[in-house]
């Protein structure tokens, strides 16, 4: 397995919302980093998790699998998962994998925060 090449930072615009900024590559090697970021982003009162893909440089099918796992964890905790910053290419991947049916996709952070 290759080393992780993703950097994830967490912001909390309000007590019910967290934003995870994704920078780099989302692959199988990102699992620990992504789940750690989820743990930091997910407070007792968190109801919305926003994934910022503006810095996404590469994603393979294992990376998409991780997003499915993240979605399951968010649903289990009654949290809504939203995303923004996807290029047209990655929007198409969300459409292909039908993740767009479960993760709300928005053009900007403001749109994502205004949703829900």
């Amino acid at each position, binding site marked *: 397995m290759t080393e992780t090449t993703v950097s994830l930072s967490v912001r909390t615009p309000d007590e019910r919302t967290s934003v995870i900024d994704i920078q780099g590559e989302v692959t199988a090697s990102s699992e620990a980093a992504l789940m750690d970021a989820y743990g930091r982003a997910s407070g007792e009162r968190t109801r919305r998790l926003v994934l910022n893909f503006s810095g996404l440089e590469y994603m393979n099918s294992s990376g998409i699998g991780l997003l499915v796992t993240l979605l399951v964890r968010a649903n289990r905790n009654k949290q809504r998962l939203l995303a923004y910053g996807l290029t047209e290419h990655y929007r198409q*991947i969300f459409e292909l994998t*039908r*993740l767009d049916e479960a993760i709300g996709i928005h053009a900007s952070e403001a749109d994502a925060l205004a949703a829900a």
Partner: protein
Amino acid sequence: MNTESTQRDGDAWAKPVEHLEVAGVEPGAKGINVAGRRPTSPIQGFGRMWQKTYRIRLEGAQASPAEVVAVWKRDFPTFWPKGNRFFAPLAGIQPGEVAVIDLSMPGHLKLSTGVLVMYADEESFTLMTPQGHMFAGWITFSAFRQEAVTVAQAQVLMRPSDPLYEVGMTLGGHRQEDRHWEHTLRSLAGAFTVEGEVSTETLCVDKRRQWSNAGNVWHNAGIRSGMHTAMAPMRLAARPFRRG
């Protein structure tokens, strides 16, 4: 937004498709339960969600991960257990291609289904199932280096598609699937003259069943394959009356 990234993995992904089309596969395929079906991810499935990982270490083989995956793609059908057929796309395992599958089920039944090649690069490829398949999800086949040894891996991320499959998977379906991929990995290793043991890890990602997707049973390829077989005499009898 990063445009370079789009070029890096752009060729590896299939384009979005609303419904599958079977363009060209190896001859002999029944090819039912594929055309017109929507591809499905684990999100669209019914049953508990599982991640199963099968690995074999190719001890002593000199092949790189890319070489292993190239052989895996090229000879994919030959590694399957006897009685199960994978009719590969004529264009090979390429993003967007559709393959047809005939699977042996208990009671000498055949289940006809297929897969979409969702992703393919030098070191991995992923197959996505259509509506009616036993499970909704995908299987990623990959190879990587670990402690100076090339490891081949098949990883399934799935939910059984409907309540009948959920019952079937619980009553032996999971074990049958495990045997299928363990056989496949041993056969792949054999292609590199390696004999090894397959390690299997099973993780229940989500214990909940998605009852809102229980209606997936309408597309159940097992039922439809059985009906197709049962109706064969009638189709044969009607053949002289068909136009063209």
